[in-house]
């Protein structure tokens, strides 16, 4: 016995059910669309925090303004009990020298704390600039993801922190950070990193590195406040995060970031 497909369909799906299915698909589509729209916003402003009453911090570093004085790196060590030896940094400055032959020389002697000396002769230099580095305070941070005990966490303000009393020192977070921002504190024997001077933020003080920067190359602020200085800066400038392909949700935005910088 043969039956036409349409007759089969009519039998199988009643009009009321068809209507239900249609609206279900519409709602699902709208929900997916909304999610997609939301995720678009996430990318722009580094996520939308659950707690709307606290700021959601982002950082801007303006490479055009950095003069490589190293005050940021120095003040950070003083403020945050970072060992003085040149193997441990929460904050450092790199000097990039692009030569006429296209090769790039990168240096960061003692993290830039003692300043820089240009070793490439002037006539060989195509361009040179400084790039301060610090924790990117990613909102999808790989270090937080891999911590086996949850000692690394994101504060409500979007600051990536380490609980000293909880960290087991497995070093997995150090491996997971693509930016090289973490180290094991040689005396405290736990993972250590930039906290955006959380202790100062809580007192409405700027992080040490921002406080001392003589050219105002560094800026932090509330990404949720659309009238804040940082959001204004992001609107008016073409900024970029480091290693955007890794999708870490970095909230450290660089102005005038060259392709030489990783």
């Amino acid at each position, binding site marked *: 016995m043969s039956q036409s497909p349409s007759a089969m369909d009519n039998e199988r799906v009643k009009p009321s059910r068809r209507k239900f299915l249609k609206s279900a698909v519409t709602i699902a589509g709208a929900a997916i669309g909304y999610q997609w729209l939301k995720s678009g916003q996430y990318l722009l402003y580094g996520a939308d925090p659950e707690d709307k009453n606290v700021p959601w911090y982002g950082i801007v570093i303006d490479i055009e303004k950095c003069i490589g004085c190293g005050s940021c790196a120095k003040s950070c060590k003083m403020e945050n009990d970072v*060992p003085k*030896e*040149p*193997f*441990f*940094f929460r904050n*450092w400055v*790199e000097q990039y020298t692009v030569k006429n032959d296209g090769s*790039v*020389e*990168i*240096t*960061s002697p003692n*993290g830039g704390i003692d300043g820089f000396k240009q070793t490439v002769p002037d006539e060989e230099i195509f361009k040179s600039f400084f790039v301060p*580095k610090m924790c990117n305070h990613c909102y999808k941070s*790989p270090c937080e*993801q*891999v*911590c*086996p*005990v*949850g000692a690394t966490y994101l504060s409500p303000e979007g600051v990536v922190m380490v609980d000293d009393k*909880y*960290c*087991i*020192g*497995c*070093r*997995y977070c*150090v*491996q*997971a*950070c*693509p*930016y*090289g*921002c*973490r*180290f*094991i504190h*040689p005396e405290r*024997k*736990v993972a250590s990193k930039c906290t955006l001077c959380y202790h100062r933020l809580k007192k409405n003080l700027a992080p040490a590195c921002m406080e001392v920067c003589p050219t105002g190359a560094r800026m932090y602020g509330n990404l949720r406040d659309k009238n804040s200085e940082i959001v204004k800066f992001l609107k008016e400038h073409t900024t970029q995060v480091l290693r955007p*392909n*890794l999708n870490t949700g970095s909230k450290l935005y660089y102005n005038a970031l060259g392709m030489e910088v*990783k």
Partner: protein
Amino acid sequence: MEPGYPHLTEILSHIQGYIFPNEIDLQWGILIVVYPFITGLVAGAFILASLERVFRVKILKPTYQLALLTALSFLLVATLPLISHLAQPLRAYEIMITPHGSSAMAIFGFVYLWYLMVVLLLEIWFDYRQSMVIWSQEKTGIMKWVYKIITLGLSDISPRTLEWDRKLGYFITVIGIPSAFILHGYVGFIFGSIKANPWWSTPLMPIIFLFSAMVSGIAMVMLIYMVVSYIRTKDLDINVLDAIGKYLFFVLILDFTIEGLDQIHRIYEAEESFETIKLLVEGKLYLTLFISQGLIGTLIPLGLLAFLQFYKGRIRLRKTLYFITGILILIGVYSMRWNVVIGGQLFSKSFSGFTSFKVGLIGLDGTLMAAFWLILPFGILAFLLWLLPPWKMVPEDY
């Protein structure tokens, strides 16, 4: 200059190009090389045991209990290099009490315990229960009580109970195979899931770890079988070696193919990190990757095993060749662990330079400590073979 960290100061002068300042010190040293090596031996040994039990490869019977006890000996040690490598070893328990759901490492404790308690210990217990009951009746003095205690007081050896022992043992082995796959595939995932590190970050990593685990575990059991037979002055059954050699050959081919595929893929895609990794493998990893892992640990054993598939002549020569093959394979797999763990930390995540690694002799993270963790399982195995000798099992089937 820096009195506190002389080893780091020394490395400073060996840095090539530019590395991030925090990258000078390698985070994971030789102990983390030893850890996946040991875990791999466990998984491989267990899979060899299950060949006999589940897939009924009867010829492998003499290696069955040996493989299980080898797996147990190495599993008991597996976590120790990890814990001793922690900066805060006394907080290690936190990983079990408050595991962080999104961390690959956090699950290790559970995978480990599952494998130890549910798979290995139970399987060995069901296997040995009848023998242990009989030993507890035969022995006198303290050993009588030791066997009594490890039978957990279950001394019923009626045929019906023994049939249940056999069934449950079989069931556990069946669960054990995917568990062994998970145990070691998972170790590969710990590395393979780190997107910041292009040398590690590949979905093939768990599979590579798994196959190299099988290769090393099978080779290790083969060697132990040879050595134990020698010590017991028993004749080594060349048919058993041939059977193990056949499996070893096939698994090594698979392992080589998959690792080769990984490298070909890297070379062909030649992503952002390619130039750096090329410099790495041609420079600092040349000896351990091409010579130690590739030539000594893979190509020569492949050639020897291929030869042994056809050559059925002088038994003494074949035994010697199997022994050499086993040793070479273990060197190769250890080198592979080295290349992954150490190699992955030698280049900077800025892809602009390399740091250096010098392993010390003494200290918690030194060669002697690593050697200790590698030798300790053999001590445990010797004890287990004394306590639970497979050749004295009832009914006699060794």
